[in-house]
């Protein structure tokens, strides 16, 4: 057996890895959102602060993109489950 560290050590490492990935994922989502909303909402540089229109746009952009991500996540999970099923069938 390879189990020289013990199962709990491996579990701990897996846990750690998952947490790191989640953090990285969140950071990626966040910076993506910022660039989308900046790109889509800000194009006027006659002032150094966001105008009312830009602010409204950023708010909507944030909420709408979160909804979009959620929807894509749902469909992604469904498609992925289908794929797994197909693969399980073919493995037999």
């Amino acid at each position: 057996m390879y189990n020289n560290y013990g199962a709990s050590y491996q579990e701990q490492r897996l846990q750690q890895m998952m947490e790191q990935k989640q953090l990285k994922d969140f950071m990626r989502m966040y910076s993506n959102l910022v660039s989308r909303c900046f790109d889509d909402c800000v194009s006027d540089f006659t002032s150094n602060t966001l105008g009312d229109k830009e602010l409204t746009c950023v708010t909507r952009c944030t909420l709408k993109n979160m909804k979009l991500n959620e929807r894509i996540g749902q469909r992604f999970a469904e498609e992925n489950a289908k794929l797994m099923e197909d693969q399980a069938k073919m493995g037999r």
Partner: protein
Amino acid sequence: MFGGVFGGGSQKPVGQMAPGGMGGGMGQAQMDPNAQLAAAEQEMEMVTDMFARLGDLCYRKCLIQRYSDEELTKAESVCTDRCVAKYFQVNREVSEKLAKLSQTNQ
């Protein structure tokens, strides 16, 4: 979780993205736990990467009425659903073609 995209146990090339893939699910019982962990990590990495790319693609193709309000419109929602489905379909097609190509080249 998202095990499916890259071979949840089957060795058939269909549905796997990387040709000559990483053999995510096979023989895990005998595998070194460190290798197992590394494989799981790589698999997760690829799935999250694929998800991020999918998100970006469908945003570009489907968010047409940008921010006239904060709700997804009906058209945008439908587009998003189809976008994801078609993305998976394209994945399947490409991996099948690649698998065939690499078979005939051997």
